[in-house]
Each structure stands twice: as structure tokens, then as C-alpha cells.
């Protein structure tokens, strides 16, 4: 299955090699390939400036309106981000679950949204993912990234979820939407508290008029205070609480054959002995115009 004999590209276009990393590295050097193909020599995320970024943006994060959040662009090398958008699995490939949900008041809560996760299922199928996609998720579960998140958000110590419960890969097809909501706040298997959402968008060439911007709503659900376009190589980090209202409420206007793609990572802490009991499930909200 691996360590095939020859160097070079097999019929699938994938590098096969024999003899471990020295063989691969020597081969790479001999081909003087573009920088992206040297990626085995460094982590996918360049952490060199991130600690300083976290320290100087911690206050901005906490004071952000309507709830603590930050938007970071150019997270990955542009070539890697482009490649990620290309290899993101199509909704018909693999075990995507179509998510259609209604709110308590009978309104559309999720339309044409596909999840590649659903808890246990993710671990059964993650090996079928393109390695670049999976490795990015492993990277986002690494200590270095967790330390960055802790410095930025002030929330610690963070626990990651390798099962990607509710998270993992998401994509929404044309016409789809995600009603404004607060997230489930308790991990159903680990029984730990969900504290931070990290969303990474994989939408190369996303046009603003296609919509799908992540809307952040005020604590009183009266108005949308901010809309973040889901463009490629953009990361949104926000506190997950019982008042961090978010969603994308208008049916997507992207063309057939495209979709709104994202990677969703959730981070947890051990339950607090003090503080409110978090709600267990996603809480869908009525918009002011619907009341």
C-alpha cells in the first residue's frame, strides 16, 4: 500500500517512494521543485509570527463586537490554500451526511448542508480524505496551534477533539443556508465544555454576490453586527457560548457545481465547577424579521 519501489508519480499522480524520508528529500532536492512540494520539511502552518500575533491581538479578540472573535487572512501558503480548495472532497464522494433541520418554530435551520463528521463516523472515514485535508486538521489539533489559541483567546487549557464531533468538513450547496444559532456546548462523549470554534474557508474564487457570509448577531438577536465572507485561506476564531449567535441566513447564490466549503474545529475545556450549565444542543433562533 505504500513504500512502492519506484520514485516518481504513479497513475494517480501521487508520489510513491521507497527508503524513508532521506530518499524523498534527496529526490525532492534533485528535482528542484517548487516550495510547496517541500512541505514535509515543515508544519503546514507557519507559526513563526503567530505568537506575537496572539499576544498583540488578544485584547482585540476579547473586545470584538458582538462577541469575542477574530478573522485571520492568509493563514496558509497561498499554494497550499489553493490546493486545499481543489482536493476538498465533492459532496458525492465519501460519507457525507446531508443535514436538513427545522427550528422549533418550524423554519428551515439547515438546508443543503453536508457534514463529513457526525462523531464516530469521522474516524471510520478520515483515512479516505485527501492527505492534505487530513493533515491540516491534524495540524489544527497540534499543541503548537492550541498554545496559539490559548494565547489569543485567554481560554485554557484547551482540549481538542480528534473525533471532530459536529465539526470536520462542512459544505453547503447552492440554495443552502444555516440558520442563526448557538452551538451545542457539551461534548456528548467526552462530557467536556465547548469553548472555541475555528472555521477555515476553502472557497477559491468566491464571489461576494454568492453570499454565504458568516453573520455574527448581537446578544439580543436584534441585528447582524458583522458579516465575514467565506473566502479561501481565511480563518474565523470565536468564543462558543450560549449567546454567540452565528449562521448564514440567505440561500446561497453560488452557481451549480460550486459549494461553500469549510473546515470546522471545536476546542473544549474541562467543565467548570462554577458557572452556568451550558445548553446541550444547537439552539436555532428566530430572526427579528420573522417575529
Amino acid at each position, binding site marked *: 500500500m505504500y*513504500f512502492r519501489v519506484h520514485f516518481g508519480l504513479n497513475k494517480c499522480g*501521487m508520489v510513491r517512494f521507497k527508503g524513508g524520508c532521506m530518499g524523498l528529500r534527496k529526490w525532492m532536492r534533485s528535482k528542484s521543485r517548487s516550495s510547496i512540494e517541500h*512541505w514535509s520539511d515543515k508544519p503546514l502552518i507557519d507559526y513563526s509570527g503567530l505568537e506575537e500575533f496572539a499576544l498583540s491581538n488578544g485584547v482585540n479578540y476579547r473586545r470584538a463586537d458582538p462577541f469575542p472573535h477574530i478573522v485571520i487572512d492568509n493563514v496558509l501558503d497561498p499554494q497550499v490554500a489553493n490546493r486545499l480548495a481543489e482536493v476538498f472532497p465533492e459532496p458525492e464522494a465519501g460519507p457525507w451526511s446531508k443535514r436538513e433541520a427545522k427550528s422549533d418554530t418550524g423554519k428551515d435551520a439547515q438546508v443543503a448542508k453536508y457534514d463529513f463528521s457526525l462523531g464516530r463516523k469521522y474516524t471510520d472515514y478520515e483515512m479516505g480524505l485527501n492527505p492534505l485535508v487530513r493533515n491540516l486538521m491534524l495540524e489544527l489539533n497540534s499543541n503548537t496551534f492550541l498554545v496559539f489559541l490559548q494565547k489569543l483567546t485567554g481560554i485554557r487549557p484547551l482540549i481538542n477533539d480528534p473525533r471532530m464531533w459536529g465539526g470536520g468538513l462542512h459544505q453547503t450547496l447552492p440554495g443552502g443556508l444555516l440558520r442563526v444559532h448557538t452551538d451545542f456546548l457539551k461534548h456528548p462523549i467526552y462530557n467536556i465544555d465547548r469553548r472555541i470554534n475555528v472555521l477555515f474557508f476553502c472557497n477559491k474564487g468566491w464571489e461576494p454576490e454568492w453570499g454565504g457570509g458568516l453573520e455574527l448577531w448581537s446578544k439580543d438577536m436584534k441585528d447582524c453586527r458583522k458579516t465575514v465572507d467565506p473566502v479561501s485561506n481565511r480563518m474565523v476564531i470565536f468564543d462558543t457560548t450560549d449567546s454567540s449567535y452565528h449562521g448564514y441566513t440567505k440561500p446561497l447564490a453560488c452557481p451549480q457545481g460550486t459549494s461553500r466549503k469549510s473546515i470546522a474545529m471545536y476546542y473544549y475545556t*474541562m467543565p467548570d465547577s462554577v458557572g452556568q450549565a451550558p445548553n446541550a444542543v444547537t439552539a436555532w433562533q428566530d430572526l427579528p424579521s420573522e417575529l
Partner: protein
Amino acid sequence: MPFNRYLKTLTQLLNPCEKAKGVDRLSPAADIVDYEKIGRQVGELNRIYVNNEPFPHVVIDDFITPQAVDTLLTAFPAAESGVQKRDNTAQTDGGKRAQFRKVGVKDESKLDPVIRQFLLELNSGRFLSLVSQISGVDALIPDPSFRGGGTHQTLRGGLLRVHADFNKHPVFQLDRRINFLMYLNKDWDDSYGGNLELWDEGVTACQKRILPIAGRVVIFSTTSTSFHGHPEPLNCPEDMTRKSIAMYYYTNGRPESEGSEAHATLWPNMPGEG
């Protein structure tokens, strides 16, 4: 779904390389664990694990290929490199030496990307699910900070006294349940020693000795009575070290039958030490 499309979907799923290019194969460490091969054996491994003496454990040989061992060894941090943490001060209550000439790296940002990628793999959902199947312990939580774990190596003359591990993660307050040890010692002769010894819960006698040879993995349940160590001074040549990768897995809470107060590493007296 029409059967043909189902088949195509399945094929795509099982052959992720179909659309992948070289750039997507980021690290030679990503493919080291052969999930298919080990997956076929989990039933048998679990049967051995739960029934094993002196406490639940299993020894798996050729967990990774000799080529993979070479890949990891190439990237393994040198014992004398500055990234190594060394703690030779650990002592038993009676003032005896608990560990000696042992160094390790747990800060993944200081590790070679190949080893780092492999450790990330060992903390992946897929791998945790494999460890759960083998051990029967569900809902395992990884520790990305590798507290007490990461890469370990012991130099000639070094030792690790028989002990039971800390049972609560000091930062997360999670319960430590599983130790995963992988050995990377090529051409390791019996006479070099360094056997992992498993002792009974009364610490009266060593019940099992496991030679730390390359490609061998030991998985065992971490409780307050799973006493283990390599207490005999290493007898390997000066230019060799006993190398291993150690990963610990946690749950939020543990069965009442294993219930005990949170404690740091326990270093009991050995027979004859009174």
C-alpha cells in the same frame, strides 16, 4: 444511490490518491501506520490485551515496517542535542535513584517535522479508535502536549525504576488510562538489557520482560498498580541509546473499580529494600 455510483464512491473513498498529487503527500510519516493490517487483528489483540498478566497489556511486533523505523530514526532527536530535557533528580521517598541518564523531548515544535507528523498521527481520531478497539477503553482523549511522553531515550548505564505512572493529567485533570510505547532499537542484543519489566501489583516479582526491539509496540492500561520500568542499568555500547516513543491517552473519569486519589508517579520499594 445506483449501485455503479455507489461503487465509484467507494473506490474514490478507498483510493484517496486518485486525485491527489505529490504535493498532498506531506510527510513520509503520514503513511507509517498500516491501519488496514492492524485493523484486521484488533479482535485477537483485544482478547490478548484484556486477559494478559500481570495487568492488561499487549505486545505487538512489526507494528511498523523496518523502512518506517529507519524513517523515524533519521528524524529522531540526538541524545546530546539541546532540545533534550533531562531529569535525573527524580528520587523515591527513600532517596533512591528513580531515573538516570534518560532524556526526552515532549515539545513537538522542537522535533523534526517527520517525527512531529508521526506523533500527530498517533493522536489522530483514527489511531485513537484503533487503540480503543485494542484496549477496550472507549472515548480516549489525546494529549497534544505529550505530558511525560514524546521521544524518550536512555543512555548506557541509565535506568528507570519500577513505578506506577501519574494517574491524573496535572493540567487537564483528565484520567490517564493507556500507555503506548514504541521501540526503535535496531540490532538490540539481549545482553544490552533495557527490558521493559511488568511487575505484579504487590511489587513482589517481575512477571514479564519485554526486549525493546525496533518495531515493537507495548500498549498497557495505566492504573495505580500497573508497575513497570527498566530498572537494570543499560548495558548497551556507549554509542547506542534505548529509544522509544511514548504516548499517553486519557478519559474524562475512570471506572470506579480503578478508583484512587490523584497521585504523581509512585516509586515503590523493591523486594529486599524494605
